[in-house]
């Protein structure tokens, strides 16, 4: 199974993802330049965090119209999975691959801190190794992570069980105090209606070794690896 880590001008978490996938998980991984449209050799593409194009216009707006992102719908249609973290989540929303938008944090502060996340949907390629209701701990690092969606979009997300992660307290309480950025209904991560595109503001790649202070982010990767083995993607190459 092959991972691609997409690099835009201004991406900053690309090396972290590359390290975790290649060194910690010992999986084949390559960098993918943002002008690349040929994604045939990959099973999973990662859109890492950072400040693509300096956040000009809106966070993720310009990257959301780049060649590699324009190739994503076809990649997803043929069974590829996409994980967008932080700026990657913003890009997926800007590109219309995920509904809603990410706006300036309600507190106006850039928040770089540890967060607790309630896993609400464990029936996705990204969360299948996790128990329903399990609380994960991962860091966030963003100034524009307030998830916004119109009421009818929220209703669709709920109906389709597309809300995967919510900010919560250590014991799983979804409270206002546990919401670091003002996201509607504490939303920290969502999937598309097929469950194959995940956008999340937290950084799983920064919670992948004990030395980083936690390994809960690995649960996302282990879920992915299990899915790719089970659906035969591994055998196909």
């Amino acid at each position, binding site marked *: 199974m092959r991972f691609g880590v997409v690099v835009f001008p201004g991406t900053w978490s690309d090396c972290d993802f590359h390290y975790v996938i290649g060194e910690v998980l010992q999986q084949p991984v390559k960098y993918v330049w943002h002008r690349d449209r040929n994604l045939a050799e990959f099973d999973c593409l990662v859109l890492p965090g950072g400040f693509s194009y300096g956040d000009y*216009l*809106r966070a993720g*707006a*310009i990257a959301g*119209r780049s060649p590699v992102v324009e190739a994503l719908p076809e990649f997803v249609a043929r069974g590829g999975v996409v994980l967008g973290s932080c700026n990657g989540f913003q890009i997926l*929303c*800007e590109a219309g691959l995920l*509904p*809603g*938008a990410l*706006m*300036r*944090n*309600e*507190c*106006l502060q850039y928040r770089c801190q540890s967060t607790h996340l309630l896993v609400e949907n464990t029936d996705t390629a990204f969360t299948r190794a996790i128990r329903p209701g399990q609380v994960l701990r991962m860091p966030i690092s963003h100034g524009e992570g307030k998830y*916004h*969606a*119109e009421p009818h979009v929220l209703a669709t997300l709920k109906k389709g069980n597309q809300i995967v992660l919510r900010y919560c307290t250590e014991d799983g309480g979804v409270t206002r105090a546990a919401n670091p950025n*003002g996201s509607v209904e504490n939303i920290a991560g969502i999937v598309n209606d097929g469950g194959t595109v995940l956008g999340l503001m937290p950084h799983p790649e920064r919670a992948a070794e004990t030395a980083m202070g936690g390994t809960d982010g690995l649960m996302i990767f282990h879920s992915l690896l299990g899915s790719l083995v089970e659906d035969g993607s591994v055998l196909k190459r």
Partner: protein
Amino acid sequence: MKARVLIRLKRGILDVQGSAVLRALAGLGYAELRELRVGKVVELDLDAADPTAATARVDEMCRKLLANPVTEDFTIECPLP
């Protein structure tokens, strides 16, 4: 042909940046302020046959990139005086 696009957060969406600027102005003594919202201006110069054609092109640009339809509204001024 010159055109100007004004991009604003939709009504009903909390403008935290505007609130912060309002508080700063209130701190400078402008106690009469009731509301303040911050938007963006994009100025363009494009080749077009007439203002109608230019407006149509700029409208397309707004929908494709310049504005986010989830959070923002936009208005186009063309031609500019």
